[in-house]
């Protein structure tokens, strides 16, 4: 009784005003049991089919990252609000998002002869990533179908990144050096001109050999001050150029110090374990979705069935229900199997009438 009430209550909550007939609903469910079970079984199978893939091998390397002395990132933009590790992880992932970088990585790993194609498109299981762990540690990882490929790819990512960082650093330093070199040449010319003017003035005024007279000669002192100031400028520019050239010479070493591999790319011994979500969660979600489809199908079938199935379908009819005559099927071994019973019925369409007529068989055949 409780189950019956619960079933009716659940269906009246669907918002329809039509009264639910539990007998008819259950009957509809059992008559369509194959159609109802099909989505519950098939949807999880389809989910498994479309989500199943070979378990990938993962290789990971750990890199120690610091900011170079000039407070710039090893490569890319340096956000002062982020840790060095975060800055570099962002830079690496940005590069990995480009086809050119990926192709260069694969070429460096010896997996691609040219950079014309993007191999990640050929093998969807390939995945390269970088993530920060802590302030100074960046993990670089690769997922692929084989342990060797994963290991090679991680190494190639680090090498390619370093190569680009060094090239980028050199390009910046070279630009600085060129700037200082030009400034220095210009400053040196100016210094030479000022020195020439001073020398001309001294030649025209031999009395300036006397230090006391020289100290009181305003023109001489002005020229002398110009030369000294320019000499300082030239000296500063020369120092800066030297410093830049020193950085250029030590460029790769400095970058290497700011981006040093602590744990080399690991060689995975076994593929990754399949996640519980993928193994059970997705099929379960598929089964639930299949259940929803089955439920909707049942509701549609039930609501669209206006035939008389149970006594409750006759509610409101002003005449009484006299009785129920059962479906008459010939007895047989497989008579209860739906398809077999249908075939039997087809072959003996007059069975019910014959049975009805046979009720009077006990009466004497001879008319009285």
């Amino acid at each position, binding site marked *: 009784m409780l189950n019956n009430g619960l079933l009716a209550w659940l269906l009246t909550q669907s918002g329809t005003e039509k009264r639910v007939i539990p*007998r008819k609903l*259950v009957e509809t469910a059992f008559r369509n049991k194959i159609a109802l079970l099909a989505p519950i079984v098939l949807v999880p199978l389809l989910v498994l089919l479309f989500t199943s893939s070979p378990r990938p091998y993962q290789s990971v390397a750990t890199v120690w990252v610091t900011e170079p002395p000039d407070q710039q990132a090893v490569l890319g933009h340096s956000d002062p609000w982020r840790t060095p590790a975060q800055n570099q992880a962002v830079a690496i992932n940005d590069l990995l998002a480009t086809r050119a970088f990926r192709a260069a990585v694969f070429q460096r790993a010896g997996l691609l002869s040219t950079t014309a194609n993007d191999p990640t498109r050929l093998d969807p299981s390939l995945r390269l990533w970088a993530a920060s762990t802590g302030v100074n540690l960046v993990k670089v990882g690769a997922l692929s179908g084989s342990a060797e490929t994963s290991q090679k790819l991680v190494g190639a990512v680090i090498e390619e990144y370093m190569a680009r960082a060094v090239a980028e650093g050199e390009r910046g330093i070279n630009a600085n050096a060129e700037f200082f070199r030009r400034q220095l040449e210009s400053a040196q010319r100016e210094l030479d001109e000022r020195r020439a003017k001073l020398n001309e003035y001294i030649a025209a005024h031999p009395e300036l050999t006397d230090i006391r007279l020289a100290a009181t000669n305003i023109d001489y002192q002005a020229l002398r001050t110009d030369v000294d100031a320019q000499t300082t400028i030239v000296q500063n520019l020369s120092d800066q150029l030297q410093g830049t050239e020193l950085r250029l010479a030590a460029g790769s070493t400095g970058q290497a110090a700011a981006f040093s591999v602590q744990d080399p790319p690991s060689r995975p011994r076994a593929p990754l374990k399949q996640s519980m979500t993928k193994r059970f969660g997705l099929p379960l979600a598929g089964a639930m979705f299949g259940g929803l489809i089955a439920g909707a199908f049942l509701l549609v079938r039930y609501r669209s069935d206006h035939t008389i199935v149970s006594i409750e379908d*006759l509610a409101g009819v002003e005449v009484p*229900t006299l009785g*129920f*005559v059962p479906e008459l099927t010939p007895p047989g071994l497989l008579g209860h199997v739906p398809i077999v019973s249908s075939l039997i019925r087809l072959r003996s369409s007059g069975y019910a009438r014959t049975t*009805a007529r046979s009720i*009077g068989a006990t*009466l004497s055949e001879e008319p009285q």
Partner: protein
Amino acid sequence: MAIGLDDRPGGQLKEALREIHLMSGLTPPGPGDRGIAIGVTSPHFGDGKTTVAIGLAASLAADFSADVTLVDGDFHTTSIASEYGLGAASGLTDVLTGRQDLEHVSHRVNSHITVIPAGRTDGDPARSARSENLVALIDNMKRASRFVVIDLPASLHSMNAPVLAQRCDGVIVVVRAGNTSRRDLDRTLQLLKDSKVLGIVVNRRKSSVPRWIEDALNLRR
């Protein structure tokens, strides 16, 4: 020793028909009782009215040891004649048109059952149904048998059904489970509003639900 229920199809049908006797108030004949005419119709062909009519006639004869006349009033299908192997025998229409007399078209098939086929269908069934002769004819049958079971046409397919139903003392409406819609039943009952409808019989009822689930959910039949 307990007597087991007869689970064979014949036994199930017999019990179902006994329930119909009981529910429709059909009782064993007493001395001096007048016969009664019971029409059996359905909304559509194939709902099982002929089967119920044959079964009802047979069970009334068997259970009450009463004389029963089974009349094929369905001029469209004339299936009772073929069911009893009477072929294209003369029948009701022939009597109504005066071509034959009742005695000539009555076929005694056993000690209690007399079958009257529909007869030749070349005439106008509507005129036959409306014929005043039919009232007298049914009266004659009722004098001869305690029960006259008339297999009427399908109500939604032939307007002869409501007309013939009015000639009967009571009408049983047969619906086919899982096939007849409530709307068709309501329309049939509307057409039979001038007749005395004894009740509804749900024919060919079958359940796909296992018995233990029916019990667990307390499902009504």
